[in-house]
């Protein structure tokens, strides 16, 4: 077909229009609009709904210290644990929350290194989510021990007992992995906040705001030197964080994989846990982002394209997780080991069948809807669907932990676990704490990474109008940013 044919030219134009990448900031919003729009969330008077939600979730969060006080003063027996089920909701909740954190680090580190520009408008809130999720997660391993006042034995502190830690124990690896992860994530997040904190400082109208944001901005002036140091440090931290995305959940999975319990002792666990964590993490990012996008009318910054991308990741990781589930069954059967075969049969058809099938429905079946573009593009449908992975990933950990140990080798010692009100209330409390912390974040810090978003606006591309080829869009961002920081 010849190109100069008028009809084919029209078709070509149509196809080109169709194939054209959607801009990551739509409606050609000016840079000042972005600053104004994001900063005003922090600067305006707290809306009524915010107060209501903050009081509700803050109140719920107080259940955490209340339940922990009861737990520590009375004994681990206030939970429903027993022998053989020595871990249940405590470790389930730990793995659940720590898993949620992973999406934030993935978005901020791995997508940064792979130059995925769409990350910019979501990475700030995703990272905040990571920090808060790790805080919630850390509560459980710290307080699930029988003698929390002796938990410092876990730290390699020289002491009079002259007993060192057991470095063969995955639980000790957890201590290091999680604390490293939290520290790096916090630094990474804070570093990325500094230019935007400077913006808030500069826009501040009250003395208090100036003081606080000024202190937090660490004297950021947006000089070229600052930007050079900043970019380098950010890159290095991204490099440090990237292996953490993979390592933390791998280490968490070692708690189970290195044990000898059928259903835990599985070499597939590290990749399977990481995939599951990203899966659950993205679902949580969407769960938080979609409502705030609506409330604050951020459609131009967090576009449908962003949501679409995240849905695709959920679809991918959900399928990976589904593959892992089926591989576990296959290997159990293939091993010929009756204990392994029983462990998995019992998962699907034993007393906890409902948890298993809830997990399959939520994690494998529900995300398949994201094959349909409609499901990815309609934020409310997305919100409804991501509730399934949110629930399913909790069930996944519950299924792995509880169904494996409640019936292991000797049928004489088989048991059953039922949660008590303390188990349930504490978990609700951590949900409250998580949302409460996020509400504080929304209110006091810029939820969108303003300066990075400005770098990816169409007008930030000097060739924006000339070429759709997009061969060199990120070429000139530095100079732009220098001015944006004061915009």
């Amino acid at each position: 077909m010849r190109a100069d044919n008028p009809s084919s030219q029209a078709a070509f134009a149509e196809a080109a229009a169709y194939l054209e990448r959607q801009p990551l900031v739509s409606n050609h919003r000016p840079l000042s609009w972005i600053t104004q729009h994001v900063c005003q969330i922090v600067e305006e008077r707290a809306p009524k709904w915010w107060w209501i939600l903050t009081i509700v979730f803050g109140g719920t969060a107080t259940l955490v210290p209340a339940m922990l006080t009861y737990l520590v003063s009375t004994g681990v027996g206030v939970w429903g644990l027993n022998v053989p089920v020595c871990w249940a909701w405590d470790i389930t909740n730990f793995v659940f929350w720590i898993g949620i954190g992973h999406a934030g680090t993935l978005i901020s580190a791995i997508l940064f290194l792979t130059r995925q520009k769409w990350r910019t408008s979501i990475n700030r809130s995703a990272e905040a989510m990571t920090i808060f999720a790790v805080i919630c997660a850390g509560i459980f391993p710290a307080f699930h021990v029988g003698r929390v006042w002796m938990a410092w034995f876990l730290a390699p502190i020289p002491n009079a007992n002259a007993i060192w830690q057991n470095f063969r124990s995955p639980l000790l690896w957890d201590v290091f992995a999680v604390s490293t992860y939290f520290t790096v994530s916090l630094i990474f997040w804070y570093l990325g906040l500094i230019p935007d904190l400077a913006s808030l400082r500069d826009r501040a109208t009250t003395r208090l705001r100036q003081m606080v944001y000024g202190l937090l901005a660490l004297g950021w002036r947006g000089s070229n030197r600052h930007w050079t140091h900043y970019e380098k440090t950010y890159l290095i931290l991204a490099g440090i964080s990237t292996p953490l995305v993979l390592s933390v959940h791998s280490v968490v999975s070692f708690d189970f994989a290195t044990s000898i319990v059928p259903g835990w002792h599985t070499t597939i666990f590290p990749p399977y846990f990481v995939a599951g964590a990203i899966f659950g993490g993205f679902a949580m990012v969407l769960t938080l982002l979609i409502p705030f996008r609506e409330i604050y009318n951020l459609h131009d910054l967090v576009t449908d394209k962003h949501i679409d991308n995240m849905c695709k990741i959920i679809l991918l990781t959900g399928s990976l997780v589904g593959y892992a589930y089926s591989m576990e069954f296959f290997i159990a059967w293939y091993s010929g080991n009756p204990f392994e075969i029983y462990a998995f049969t019992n998962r699907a058809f034993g007393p906890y069948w409902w948890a298993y099938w809830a997990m399959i429905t939520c994690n494998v079946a529900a995300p398949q809807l994201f094959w349909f573009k409609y499901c990815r593009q309609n934020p409310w449908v997305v919100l409804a669907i991501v509730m399934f992975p949110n629930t399913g990933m909790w069930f996944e950990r519950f299924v792995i932990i509880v169904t494996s140990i409640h019936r292991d080798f000797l049928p004489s010692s088989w048991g059953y676990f039922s949660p008590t009100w303390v188990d349930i209330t504490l978990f609700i409390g951590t949900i409250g704490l998580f949302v409460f912390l996020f509400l504080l974040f929304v209110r006091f810090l810029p939820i969108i990474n303003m300066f990075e978003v400005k770098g990816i606006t169409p007008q930030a591309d000097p060739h924006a109008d000339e070429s759709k080829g997009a061969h060199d869009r990120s070429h000139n961002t530095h100079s732009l940013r220098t001015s944006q920081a004061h915009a």
Partner: protein
Amino acid sequence: MKRTLHHPSSSQGRTYWRSLGEYAQTPDFEEWLHREFPAGAAEWENDPLSRRNFIRLMGASIALAGLSLSGCRRPEAHLVPFTQSPEWVVPGKKMSFATAQPRRRSAVPLLATTFDGRPIKMEGNPLHPLSQGASDNLAQASILDLYDPARRQHLTRGGKKASAADWDAEINRIRAESNSASGSSLAILADEQLSPTRDRLRAELQRQFPQSTWATYEPLAPGRDLEASALVFGDNTEFRPNLSAATTILAVDCDFLGSDEGDLSDTRGFSSGRRTRQPSDSTNRLYVVEPRFSLTGTMADHRLRLRPSAIGAFLLELARQIRAAKPSAELNTLLSQAPDLALPEGVDPAWIRECAADLVSHGNRSLLLVGRRLPTSLQALALALNSALGSVGTTLLVQPRRTPTSATLAQLAEKIRSGSIQTLIILGGDPVYNAPADMNWAALQSSVPNTLHLSSLPNATSKQSTWSIPGTHYLESWGDALAIDGSYLSIQPMIQPLWAGLSQLEVLSRILGQPNPIGPSLIRETFAQRTGLAGEKLEQSWNDFVREGFLASPTATPTSRAANLNTVAGLLSRVETSPAEDPASLEAIFSHSAAVDDGRYANNGWMQEWPDPMTKLTWDNAILLSQETARSLGLKNDIIKGILVADVVQATLAGRTIEAPVVIAPGHANFSATLPVGYGQELSGPVAKGAGFDAYRLRTSTSDYHTLGLQLKRTGRTQELAVTQEHQVMEGRDLVREASVSEFKENPAWVKTVGMDAHIPPNQTFYPNPKLDGQHQWAMVVDLSTCTGCNACVTACTAENNIPIVGKDQVMKGREMHWIRVDRYYTGEPDAPESVSQPIACMQCENAPCETVCPVNATVHNEEGLNVMAYNRCIGTRYCANNCPYKVRRFNFFDYNQRALDKLYWGPLAPKGTEETIKLQKNPNVTVRMRGVMEKCTFCVQRIEDAKISARVRARDSADLKIPTGTLKTACQQACPAEAIVFGDLLDESSEVKKLRDLPQNYSLLEYLNVRPRLTYLGRIRNPNPAMPGARTHYAPSHGHTENHSADKSTATSHATPTQTKQGSHE
């Protein structure tokens, strides 16, 4: 232990506790005493009964039991501190003293282990042939009764505290009243005890008050066996089985391994014939006919479910079959008047025929045992059949009756009704609670103007009595008893009575007008009379008697006794046909409870939490029904969330009604229901309160064991029951491995072809294992052929290791703390299952999965192969318990030692602390664990260390620090009457454990995990009779393997001795 067991022999001077008694009377000693500690002396005398005083002074004064024995009746002697310590007394070291626990029909020879004057643990008396160091469950648990805080602490009259003067006045009143009527107004109701001294005082009482009444009552020992013995063998005879001589045993509703009196010798004898270590060993064969699955039933090679009412027809048929196999004139005589009854439904005549043939073919090595609560006629028939088989004198021993006959409770009731009894003295027991319901004992007792009740614990009877006298525990008082073999046992006190207790002998001697007995004076008198010794010889003999705990009597040579068959023949005409199967009229069977016996241990927390060996039920009893009967009545059990939810029924028998939960018991006879007695006591202390239902309320004089006409009606309600094992079958796993004798002979290494063991690939070791280079390498082997599953090890471990009880609620949650448990699985046909038991304690894995996962190194391996716990290092992550394949680790979910069990959830709001008396029981060599730490069995590491210290002391400067072979036993091993648990040093070639581990039938549980446990099992050998209908010939499921194809990988799969282990780890 050997050292402390023996007092210094009298050649070195008099024994300490004797000489102190004498020494104390010297003027200069008394002067010294009062000059040295006047203040303390005054204090003690002012308030001699204060527990606080007692405890404060105990450590320094009575401290070492030797001294406490010296003058139990003379409190002033206890002020003597150890300013001059006897030579062999080492503070903090245990001492053992011989004593005995009196039982209904026998006594258990025991050693009490004492620390600083506190008895803390009971062991069997190793010198006595019955015990040989073993004990049983109830002997182990009895120590807790001593320290029960609910014990009566004061003399009370009409519920109010009475003074010593009141008591003296009451004694005088009783004597005056009895004197005036030559005793016709006086009646004594006693529990059964074989105490020669009590019998002597009783004879004295009879002499002083000829018209007085002496009745005995035991709810579970109606004495029909004695009647039968009198009928068959003549008056004043009794019989006992000699199971060690028996090769073929038929037990008909006779749980000789479980609960019948004299179990120690029965279990020991049976297991000696059962033990099959080499293919050349002979194995005895056990047939069991019984209504409910008993421990004896679990050991049976052939078991038949039968209701007690059908046993008459069964035994008559058996007699005819014995006659058919071995015709004799005496059997013709015996059966001449016997009715021709139809066999009970479902009984295969071939079963009886082959069983009879087997009994006959073993002649005088065979034994027929019939339950002692069955009708006299059937017991007499059984004795006659034994006589016909020729077994009297070999497997069935006849001996002189040990106790005089007494009036029965019914006869006493008659006298009370006639109004002649003015004073009723009840020595022990609880007739208000456990007398037949139709007797209305409570009302009868109230009609007597003066009632006195002596008991250690409060109960329903003491509440109804005018006087309630606190009794002593057997560890607090002097006494004596006759063992089942007639040997004379001494009971010596280990401790001053904790409260103002009186023993039965003291009460009796007061009533006889004698002054308060001083020390063992009453027993000494009996002893002198029995032995006929005097002077120095008596002195010598008495010392031996008390020191060794029994009087060595020449073993009577068993003689065959002619049976009087004519009287039996007459009785047989009354044997009734077995009743029709009618779900509307079930057969009620009133059995004892394995945990609380007839109810006397109901306030014993160890026993309440001790799982019933068959139902695994704790803190409750339940009506037991077969699956089919339950189904026909529409009753069910569900396991809901790990809790046994049982239907509650309304049980009606002869117009009396109770409500009780129903538990479906596999192997129970159809159309019958077992109602275990002993529970439902509301007045016997806080532990007993609320536990179970009271089956005595349905039991009448005519139905003391079994009766027809029980109706069970669904109430629609359910009750949650606490069971320690919810899953009853092995799920096809190779956990308990069984083979028949013929399979064992074919392939002595059959255990290796079972299940996954034949498929284990060679192991590759990644981590270096801990070095096992200690001088000892500890290991344990459990012989599943002889383990009866009696759970005595559980109680022994509880007592030794300060294991707390956690209460019903916590057991339902799966938080029981026992370090050793006995798994019980049902196998075989669902309708007539077999049952196997497997004791599980920490396996002390050489390659322990718990150790690698502990983040703080709180559980580590020692160089002797023990997996040890550092409790104060443990932070309680519980990871070790998750990774333990045997699930033997126990976690302190609450402060079980510090908080009341009903206030565990109150946390700091609950008062903190343990009862002072309970503290006295604790073993000072074992940590009392706090909440939040993991605990488990460590093969009694405290005993190992103690033995090591002793070895070191003995060794002095030599290098031989080895603990001598066989001198060290774990608590579970020591208690086991079947000697099924063997513990020892693998490096000691002469040790039993080394020999057993090298046997081909030795296997590790879950061997494929390569955790290399130090606790291994000898596969269970059964001895089925191939001629029996439905006999299983193949027990070992071998997946079609005829040979062990892992034989070429010996390093990887053998039960590695330590040297092999080291090789394995360096591969």
